[in-house]
């Protein structure tokens, strides 16, 4: 555990810092004066200058970045230009929504995708072709469009689920489940077949290997050969794909939160983009790169656990 934390500080954290630096520099290119934007066109120049000084906008860029980074390390991400509220507090609430959407989606995708991939690898035949076809459709159908179709069918035409909106788990668990059902279903429909295809090809790769034949020759049951040995060896490439999938789901969530009007990080980013709310944008990038880097590290660790060659 100590080694894992050490790795995180040594390799993952610097990446996050670089990403935040890039975003900061990029954001500083925003045309116009944020102070002017906040105060409006008619505000007197003295007032604007005062706000610039207050916001630190008169300082040189490296100084501004350093101040921002130090504050961020203390959990202070500044204030939103539009709502004037604390960015950190806003993000904390919204991260929950996004993460619950992505994690639920990932769980469904992994369970169904890996299961389907394993079965289609062993049984072969039409199931394998179905997985290939479905993965192509999963690739081609954009999540936001599919989400809208699901809303049109399962919420508008046949009102089974609420079309949009979000209910907090603490308010009503059933309401929460209902509000998450369509977004999670959308994520699952777009991601499952791809993972199933990857699983199938990894499992087929392993099944063709010599050690599988030798394990059979040594009198092990087919169950044990597949569930223990093949799964373990096919697991390493699958874990890598799951990591990439997670990052893809975060990107997909940005659009799905807009489709389903969920108060997550994605819809916040879209709103902030439209309003040029730079502090919020910087905060979102920071938090999400944190999440992504941590997930990548977890993937790396599980890969090493599954593959002794990497470990020793």
């Amino acid at each position: 555990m100590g080694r894992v934390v050490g790795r995180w500080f040594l390799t993952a954290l610097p990446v996050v810092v670089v990403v935040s630096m890039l975003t900061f520099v990029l954001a500083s290119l925003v045309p116009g004066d944020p102070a002017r934007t906040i105060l409006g066109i008619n505000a007197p120049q003295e007032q604007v200058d005062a706000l610039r000084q207050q916001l630190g906008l008169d300082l040189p860029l490296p100084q501004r970045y350093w101040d921002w980074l130090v504050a961020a390390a203390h959990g202070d991400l500044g204030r939103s230009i539009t709502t004037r509220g604390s960015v950190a507090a806003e993000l904390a609430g919204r991260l929950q929504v996004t993460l619950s959407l992505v994690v639920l989606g990932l769980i469904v995708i992994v369970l169904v995708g890996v299961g389907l991939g394993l079965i289609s690898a062993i049984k072969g035949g039409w199931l394998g072709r179905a997985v290939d076809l479905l993965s192509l459709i999963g690739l081609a159908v954009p999540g936001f469009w599919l989400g809208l179709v699901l809303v049109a069918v399962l919420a508008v035409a046949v009102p089974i689920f609420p079309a949009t909106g979000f209910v907090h788990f603490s308010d009503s668990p059933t309401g929460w489940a209902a509000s998450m059902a369509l977004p999670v279903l959308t994520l699952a429909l777009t991601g499952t077949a791809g993972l199933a295809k990857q699983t199938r090809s990894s499992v087929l790769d392993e099944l063709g290997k010599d050690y599988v034949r030798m394990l059979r020759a040594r009198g092990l049951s087919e169950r044990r050969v597949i569930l223990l040995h093949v799964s373990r060896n096919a697991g390493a490439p699958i874990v890598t794909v799951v990591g990439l999938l997670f990052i893809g789901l975060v990107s997909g969530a940005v659009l799905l939160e807009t489709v389903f009007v969920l108060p997550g990080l994605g819809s916040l980013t879209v709103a902030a983009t439209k309003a040029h709310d730079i502090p919020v944008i910087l905060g979102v990038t920071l938090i999400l790169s944190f999440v992504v880097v941590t997930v990548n590290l977890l993937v790396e660790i599980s890969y090493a656990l599954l593959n002794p060659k990497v470990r020793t």
Partner: protein
Amino acid sequence: MIGRLLRKPLAVASLVWVLALIMLSVLAPLIAPYSPDQQDILHALEGPSRAHPLGTGVLGLDVWSRLLYGGRVTLVSTAISVAVYALVGLPAGLLAGYRGGLVDKVVLRLSEVAYAIPGTIMVLVVLAVRPNDETAAMVAVGLLAAPALARVVRSATIAVREELYIRAAVLSGLPDRLILRRHVLPTVMGTVIVHVALFATTAIVLETGLGFLGVGTRQVSWGELVAEASRNLGNQPWLLAPSGFVIITFILAFGLIGDGLRDANAEGYSVRQRAPRPVRRHRPPAAAAPPNAPADLTPNQRVIPAADALLAVEGLSIAFEVSGQIVTVVEDVSFAVAPGELVGIVGESGSGKSVTVAALLGLLRGTGRVTAGTMTFQGRRFDLADVKSLAGLRARRIALIGQDPMSGLDPAFTVRHQLAEVLKANTGLRGPALAERVLELLRAVSLPEPTAVAKSYPHQLSGGMAQRVSIAAALAGQPDLILADEPTTALDVTVQAEILDVLRSLGKAVLLVTHDWGLLVDLCQSGIVMYAGQVVEQGSVADIVADPRHPYTLGLLRSNPYFAQPGRPLPAIPGLVLPPDRWPAGCHFAERCPLVGPACLADPIPLGPAAGRLGWTRCLFQSQVAGLEEREARP
């Protein structure tokens, strides 16, 4: 590669569709019945009609016209990001892979950074800074994805750089620029094109997503049409259909082109295929017993009395399905093994010897199936096509030792785990007795440090150690017969000798597959010579070596270094083993045989008794084989 792609109907249809969409968008001002912002208030939000073939949106805007104009945005944006992706990723990958060093490190670090940013978020950052500047956003999309391409190109380039012809080019002083352009680029180009096609699908999804969110261009776009549909889901869900159709089919087309390119690229690297020739329908196997053989004897019973036989295989035939055709690879093979006897099967690669052995445990690979044959083992009769009942013999009665010891062990588990697992599956041992037995097995195969080996993973073992572990695993079930499929081929000569000692010391019956006469002579009492799926000669090893009765046996013996004569060149058998789908009706060896006559070509040659000594041969001219040897031995 393009030629191969054009032979794939799905890919061609996709190409046509992409070209059609491009044409329609380019010609939009000519084709579109309305301008994209022409209103028809009286017919707002209607389904398809004569005036509006795809219906109308809010304010009666014509969907068909807007679709045509909208395509321009998506196409241009996709093209921009694809261009950036390729123009940045390709050179960066080439340089990183070819030069290595600092450039390589920088590219790898950058790709790590790019992996840490969810793409959509970063594109939104760009759009926050440059509102509605879709070009900037799509450039960012290309830049963010370029490191991934660079990584792919980098590994491909490294692989090419290691090739001898590139090293030769470098040594001959060809400038790097020229080497990259003439030699490296063409080889990695296939991979790049595949990735570009697949990246295009991502770019389209992102572009339409931006349009949907309303943060992209202010012009009409496909994504914006979806957004319009989303605002009118309640009263006109039809609006989802036209925009969804073009977006999905456009992405699908690129996906299919990518798949097609990948296949075409892979085919380009595979071995050049032989011109397709008609596969001869397999004729029914020849009569199970040679006509002139006494009916109550199996072929090598004169070497091993039948009553004592531990294993007797009769009439084994094996076929594989190759692109829809049934191809027989082993024909009517019969032999026997006495308890404690060491029997060797010898032959060139492709003679069917390994398949024969695998069939005894029901372990044929892929589409392989036993089409005929039975086996009597310890007095019990088995149908060799019945894999289930053969599986019951595995490990506890008949064990297998494989050719490549390394790949025969599961890389993910320790030796201890794998041996314990085999013991648990085949014996009642549990707990401390099990742990002790694992070490005992490792000692039995003369591994010097059993405890250390037990803790190791396969990749930490040497080839010889791994093969000893395989033998230990084969011994775990206390089998009565060990099938050893080229057990020493992958090992050093000194290690080979040690492994053979281990095999000999076991005191068990061994059926050894080998192409090495030295091994056969050292280890085995009986020998079976196979050629092109058939037994061509069998008998005692001493007889076969001293007095071969088949020209193939003679050729094999004379081409073996083990029997080389000092000062004489080592003769080789002319020609190659024919692939199974080209075996002739007559003698399989006819094409390469110095004794071949008209009688050899017409009908299958039966296995007949050797004249004047024990053993069997499948040659009509067995008496002339000895003369052949003398004739060629003359200077």
